[in-house]
């Protein structure tokens, strides 16, 4: 493979991108994508430096770059609000906005949510206890994070399915290469989500409750002014989207790693404290958010390549997470790796994922509960048949069929 030909949009590369990542890190640490013109940065240290350099690498990437047709952009302008999330901003604006919301993601707050999380996870885990194959993605990974976020926002739990649909559509433009018709569909569904959220804000103003949407409508800036509608929408859209695909895939990929790595499950049964490192290793190896974007505010030279001002830079977290310059023996799932959690799966520094503590708690509790109830997880079908949703920024398993160990199933039958 020559590095000039590497195309991360290629479905074949997306199925198993790790060889391409190594070639990029070693031979083209700043690589201009042939199809999108974006500059891919793949080494761990470089990504760490760039996320700490917002003056030259701005987060204010015009979200419009995701849409190619004017019709889709115009539809947003005519019928709702432009797609703009607080994530896509720089200091000092970003700092102010984030400081307002951070108190709602402290250790104390998150601990309050734990009993509800345990209940939701326990209910879903019970549904997996069948003797026939189950799709871990559809029956567990999909409903868990979406149910959690629906409850935390203060929306009716039964709405988690429609929210899931809207957020699945919302992320489609990150795949690039959408047809004009598909872009229009994304815009129409996006406006439906905005209208749903606007109604929810109205409800929370009338009937405040102990939930995140109430926080959004009640939050005041230092000067006493409320958040704008655009800001509230941006945050709420970000919350549902952020909770959905990423945690779903963190869960699915962790199960895949658990099954593919012999000995890991036995060790986790013997030493449950190792679940913490197991989860970090899975996040490192599979990085559900494979990459994020920045835009250069000036010409920047890196590794002999000049990135012109105004270019989109794609920080490939998934490649940095397997950089042997930072993680020795990077392809191995190592339960004793001391720096496992220094990965880039949640990015770092000012834009470090606000929901990371919640995602970590969900995935850790999920495996604690699943491992306490079952043993010997295995694939139910041909392990070669993994299939991923096409996409550049997100890595997403379509399904993951797993099965109970026959001996365990027999023991259950005897006990019953």
């Amino acid at each position, binding site marked *: 493979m020559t590095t000039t030909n590497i195309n991360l949009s290629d479905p074949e590369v997306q199925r198993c991108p790790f060889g391409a990542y190594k070639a990029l890190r070693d031979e083209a640490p700043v690589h201009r994508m042939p199809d999108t013109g974006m500059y891919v940065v793949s080494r761990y240290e470089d990504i760490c430096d760039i996320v700490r350099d917002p003056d030259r690498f701005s987060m204010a990437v015009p979200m419009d770059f995701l849409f190619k047709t004017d019709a889709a952009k115009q539809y947003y302008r005519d019928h709702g609000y432009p797609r703009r999330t607080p994530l896509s901003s720089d200091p000092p604006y970003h700092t102010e906005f984030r400081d307002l919301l*951070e108190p709602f993601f402290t250790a104390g707050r998150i601990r309050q949510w734990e009993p509800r999380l345990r209940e939701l996870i326990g209910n879903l885990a019970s549904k997996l206890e069948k003797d026939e194959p189950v799709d871990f993605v559809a029956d567990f990974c999909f409903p868990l994070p979406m149910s959690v976020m629906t409850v935390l926002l203060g929306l009716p739990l039964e709405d988690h399915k429609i929210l899931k649909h809207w957020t699945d559509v919302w992320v489609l433009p990150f795949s690039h290469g959408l047809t004009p018709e598909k872009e229009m569909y994304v815009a129409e569904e996006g406006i439906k989500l905005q209208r749903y959220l606007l109604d929810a804000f109205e409800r929370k103003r009338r009937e405040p409750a102990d939930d995140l949407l109430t926080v959004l409508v009640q939050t005041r800036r230092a000067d006493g002014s409320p958040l704008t509608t655009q800001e509230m929408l941006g945050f709420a859209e970000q919350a549902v989207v952020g909770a959905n695909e990423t945690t779903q895939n963190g869960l699915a990929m962790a199960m895949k790693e658990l099954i593919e790595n012999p000995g890991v499950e036995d060790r986790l049964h013997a030493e449950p*404290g*190792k679940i913490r*490192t197991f989860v970090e290793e899975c996040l490192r190896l599979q990085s559900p958010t494979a990459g994020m974007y920045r835009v250069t505010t000036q010409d920047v030279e890196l590794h002999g390549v000049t990135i012109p001002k105004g270019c989109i830079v794609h920080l490939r977290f998934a490649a940095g997470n397997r950089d042997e310059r930072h993680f020795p023996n990077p392809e191995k799932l190592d339960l004793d790796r*001391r720096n496992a959690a220094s990965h880039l799966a949640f990015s770092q*520094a000012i834009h*470090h994922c606000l929901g990371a503590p919640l995602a970590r708690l969900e995935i850790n509790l999920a495996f604690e509960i699943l491992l306490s109830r079952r043993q010997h997880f295995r694939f139910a079908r041909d392990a070669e048949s993994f299939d991923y949703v096409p996409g550049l920024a997100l890595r997403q398993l379509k399904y993951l069929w797993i099965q109970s160990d026959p001996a365990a199933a027999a023991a259950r039958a005897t006990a019953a």
Partner: protein
Amino acid sequence: MKAVIDPARCQGKARCFNLYPSIFGKGPDGKGLIVRTEDLDTDELIVDAQSAANACPRGAITLVD
């Protein structure tokens, strides 16, 4: 392994002690300080300290062996 805060970099943004109070605390000057001064000897403590280092907006936290 131990966590160390560089007081010159820390600006008291509070992420470390808001998220991981078993390791970090708030000093009288509003900046972060280490409350867990003993060795970080469990996976839980190591992962939490590392997570705090990732999250710190100022890059003020490092882990040393």
